[in-house]
């Protein structure tokens, strides 16, 4: 079986951290690097968290490149810490990482890797798209050299989670999303329409903690407040596995229902700023620019997630 080589562009973030763990637990995936971006937390915290989680999972050799500290145009939001905790990863108190990020900006790291291995690397952006947009703009050959993007972002038919219409990652940098969506890079979009169907419950976390492992304890500590947030604001038990679901595109594509659509994002500055919309009725006659996931076998993905975490906790990849 050939492994798929990926770079995750990320703003960890509780569900971001779970995504790294799922990637590391999966023999189908070779995690090449993490690039960080401002989003759930500041880029400095995102970088620190990325290094800490890699260390926890015994993957401190994987390089981390720090990226943009600010969205392209918009002012950064101020609310992410309410969801992800002041550290960005809930109550987990991971040791300060001893390792440091690379001495290279994430934009340049992405450009360098992608041009050196044209058509080989898939990028999984699970935060705001600032780094990806600037890599596209700085190096015109970048878009043709990336194998694909699998993006967590947007809300097509689903309501938004930061405004009535908009999802967080896209709303945080709508201009970057506009650049990326119109770049010509093959895209798979994983929007709230499917991620809210993948709920990790307290029982799931308890089941995982039957294994005595620092990783299992991390998952518990990281998700505790995240679950409390969902309970308080969105009225359900458990937390959505938004970012980890991107990896279903590799691990279990049969769980996703994908449609080819033309999707764009509103950058007008009006009430729908950051809204992702698909032209279902083909009124614009624009060709499809992505595959968008509109349904998922949610519980099956959560089971897959837990099984992989159990294997990782038991020290098996």
């Amino acid at each position, binding site marked *: 079986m050939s492994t798929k080589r990926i770079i995750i562009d990320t703003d960890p973030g509780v569900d971001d951290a779970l995504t790294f763990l799922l990637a590391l637990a999966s023999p189908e995936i070779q995690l090449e690097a993490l690039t960080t971006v401002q989003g759930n937390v500041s880029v400095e915290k995102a970088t620190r968290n990325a290094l800490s989680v890699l260390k926890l999972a015994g993957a401190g050799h994987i390089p981390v490149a720090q990226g*943009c*500290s*600010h969205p*392209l*145009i918009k002012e950064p939001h101020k609310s992410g810490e309410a969801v992800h905790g002041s550290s960005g990863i809930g109550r987990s108190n991971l040791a300060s990482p001893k390792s440091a990020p690379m001495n290279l*900006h994430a*934009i340049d790291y992405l450009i360098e890797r992608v041009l050196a291995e044209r058509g080989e690397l898939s990028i999984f952006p699970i935060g705001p798209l*600032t780094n990806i*947009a*600037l890599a596209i*703009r*700085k*190096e*015109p050959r970048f878009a043709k050299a990336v194998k694909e993007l699998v993006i967590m972002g947007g809300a097509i038919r689903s309501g938004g989670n930061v405004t009535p219409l908009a999802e967080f990652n896209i709303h945080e940098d709508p*201009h970057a999303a*506009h*650049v990326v969506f119109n770049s010509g890079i093959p895209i798979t979009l994983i929007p709230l329409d499917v991620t809210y169907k993948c709920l990790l419950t307290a029982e799931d976390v308890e089941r995982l903690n039957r294994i005595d492992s620092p990783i299992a304890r991390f998952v518990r500590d990281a998700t505790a407040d995240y679950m409390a947030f969902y309970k308080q604001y969105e009225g359900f038990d458990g937390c959505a596995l938004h970012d980890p679901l991107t990896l279903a595109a590799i691990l279990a594509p049969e769980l996703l229902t994908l449609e080819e659509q033309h999707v764009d994002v509103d*950058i*007008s*500055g*009006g009430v729908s700023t950051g809204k992702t919309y698909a032209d279902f009725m083909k009124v614009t006659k624009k060709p499809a620019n992505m595959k968008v996931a509109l349904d998922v076998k949610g519980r099956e993905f959560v089971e897959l997630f837990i099984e992989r975490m159990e294997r990782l906790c038991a020290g098996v990849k």
Partner: protein
Amino acid sequence: MNPKHIILDTDPGIDDSLAMLLALASPEVQLVGISTVHGNVSGEQVTKNALAILELAGASHIPVYKGCDVPLVKEPLISPETHGNTGLGYAQLPEPTAQPQAGHGSDYLIEQIMSRPGEITLVAIGPLTNLALAYRKEPRIAQNVKEVFIMGGAIQHPGNTTALAEFNTYVDPHAAHIVFHSGMPILLTPLDVTYSCIFTPDDLKRLQRIDSPITKYIADSTRFYMEFHDEYQSIAGCVINDPMTLALTFMPEICDYQTLVVDVDISTGVGLGNTFADFYNYEKKPANMQVAMSVRPRLFMELFLERMEKLAHSLS
């Protein structure tokens, strides 16, 4: 007096090329290098033009770094009807022998500004894509650049690209938005002052008394530019926005300035790219730039003509 160390971020462009020549002819400034940006013509063509102009003026030792090919967010827009297909009007310069340096224009700005804190004067006379990209990648350039002179915008003056918007800010309004909000010390030269400075056919005749490749170039390039101004704007002569911006770096008395809060419309409505000043400071925001709002046109034009005469003599 020590000359100011200047980097030109430019999209030559007829008036851009005249700004390059003015920098080379002026002992008050030292042209450290050039970063190029899409705008009047494509990123490839502006880079070739910058190299060709430096060779024309015997200054091919000055490094040229190619920057961004397209605007940050908007679709690209170039302006061959104003500057001709090559960007330099009817001028036919030889193919440049020099190549641009390795490295991106935006990284060149970062590297120069960060290695010489408080020393670099940036003169940005095209769309602001390179500067915006550089700032997003390295936000500390805002505190480390000495000053940024920008040709762009139309405050109380009408636009020259839409009814409301000036070309450079219209081509990349998002980049202008980023730069205007960056905290860099900005001096803006909008159409409000540049449209008072007309390079006339008589001015050209004065320069043509000197037989030199420089005066021939100015004649060939501005003849096209004058035809455009005559056809579209009923102006006898041409507006040379960019060299005026350059001149303000060492002869500030050409203009009078107001300290203002200026922003740019990025809403995608009819006002897209419009630069507007909050003259009454309704929004109580701190001023973010100095704006040249009135001008002594002949003071600038005499300076420009004298310097071009000097350069032409030295290269005749």
